[in-house]
């Protein structure tokens, strides 16, 4: 029982990361119709950027964190201004495959720059809450894990409140539901796309900073996070952040249980086999058909 409890706790913590990234993918897809495959790379930049500025350049930790987040925000702003505006607004490119490659290319670009700046070794941002794990009976809670969970709850809760209780949140939803209908009432859908892109990039970077002491990051770590967030978002049909969040938690817990009870080495392989089987067996129920057909 103790092992099961600890595995579920570990799974929920990992799942909350996947859930957050899935929500980031789903929310931005709603307003832009573009799948952001670079979201995990922003997490990597957050983790390795803070590590580099703090450990190598010797900046104080708060300055390193603020500088990294500012760089991520400015980069996301410029990317939207230069690439996405040309791709989507001027040339009116449409279709999931065409727009897919704009963030795919961004992911490769960020990885390449990160390799030059941070090297190929495993690094992590310094822990923000150091000390031994906390225990409750026979259950163990890593402090970094608690921070990850707290960030997920705070960001998820803030987003939920924004959507449910503000006109801006409803305008965001309307932008995803019907772009023409949104423009008619005066909603600037381009501005929403920009702010959500910047917001999700910064959220991803924060998660990278908070989570990296648990797993460590290399310049290639972003791709794995993006992939899992992408799959979780796909289970919500890409357009339903609530379902994407549940799918992210489910994948995290399943991954932990498979790693603990089936095979630590082949847990991920079994996990993706199960996820693929679920999609094949029940595509409509999982919203995957609508995700692919648009």
């Amino acid at each position: 029982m103790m092992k099961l409890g600890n595995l579920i706790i570990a799974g929920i913590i990992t799942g909350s990361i996947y859930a957050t990234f899935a929500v980031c993918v789903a929310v931005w897809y709603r307003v832009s119709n573009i799948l952001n495959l670079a979201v995990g790379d922003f997490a990597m930049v957050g983790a390795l950027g803070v590590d580099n500025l703090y450990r190598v350049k010797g900046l104080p930790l708060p300055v390193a964190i603020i500088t990294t987040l500012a760089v991520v925000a400015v980069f996301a702003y410029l990317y939207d201004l230069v690439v996405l505006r040309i791709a989507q607004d001027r040339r009116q490119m449409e279709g999931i495959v065409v727009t897919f490659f704009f963030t795919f290319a961004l992911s490769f670009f960020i990885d390449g720059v990160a390799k030059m700046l941070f090297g190929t070794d495993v690094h992590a941002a310094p822990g923000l809450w150091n000390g031994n794990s906390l225990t409750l009976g026979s259950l163990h809670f890593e402090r970094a894990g608690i921070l990850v969970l707290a960030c997920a709850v705070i960001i998820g809760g803030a987003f939920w409140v924004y959507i449910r209780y503000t006109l801006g949140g409803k305008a965001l939803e309307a932008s995803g539901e019907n772009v023409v209908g949104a423009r008619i009432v005066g909603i600037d859908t381009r501005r929403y796309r920009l702010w959500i892109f910047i917001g999700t990039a910064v959220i991803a970077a924060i998660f990278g900073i908070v989570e990296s002491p648990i797993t460590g990051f290399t310049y290639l770590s972003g791709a794995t996070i993006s992939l899992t967030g992408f799959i979780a978002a796909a289970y919500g049909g890409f357009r339903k952040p609530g379902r994407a969040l549940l799918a992210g938690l489910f994948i995290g817990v399943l991954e932990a249980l498979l790693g603990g009870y089936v095979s630590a080495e082949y847990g991920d392989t079994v996990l993706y086999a199960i996820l693929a089987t679920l999609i094949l067996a029940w595509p409509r129920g999982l919203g995957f058909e609508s995700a692919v057909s648009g």
Partner: protein
Amino acid sequence: MSEPAQTALTVTGLSVAYGNVIAVHDATFSVAEGDACAITGPNGNGKSSILMGVTGMVHRRGTVEIFGAPARNGDVRWAARHGLTLVPERRQLYPNLTTTDNILLGCYGWTRNIRRARSSASFGRAIDLFPELKPHLKQAAGTLSGGQQQMVAIARGLAANPKILAVDEPCLGLAEAVAKRVYDALAQIHDEGTTLIVVEEAPRRALTLCNRRVEVRNGMAGPS
């Protein structure tokens, strides 16, 4: 002696094209404040494109003035802020949002504050316009009937607190009884002082409400 009505909308030399296809060519007309103006003509002759160009939903050539102020080309928000609101063809609702949220978003053009929007006279007026929608206020708009969706679209337009309400094909695909109900609501909006522009394929129906008519033929528009 009553003062002459102010000109609400002046359209001069309006042209709208989609790529190489010219939908509207050199349309010129004006609508006085308090008018109910019908834009009529056969399908595919550019009636809706006139509204799209006037409201800024698509880019245009020519000039549009709303209460004397030159309208910015392609800027729907500017038009909405200056009192011109479009109720589009095929409604363009947000299907997974509730009826209330759809109507509430009509207020977005003049406020970002949800409490201010909910307590506003224009939102209250929009909600009260169609009492038959009240049992469906918490229902997703996409699950409503076609007639109810048209009512939501008109109510959303009214929540914007327009001085000019431009309604595109309000009865498209509706049963006659529902179409009459929609026209009754438009008449009520007009009676309460809002200038109306109604795009309608059937001139007979439009003229039960409108005191002016602009006829569109092959993308050319002029007073009938």
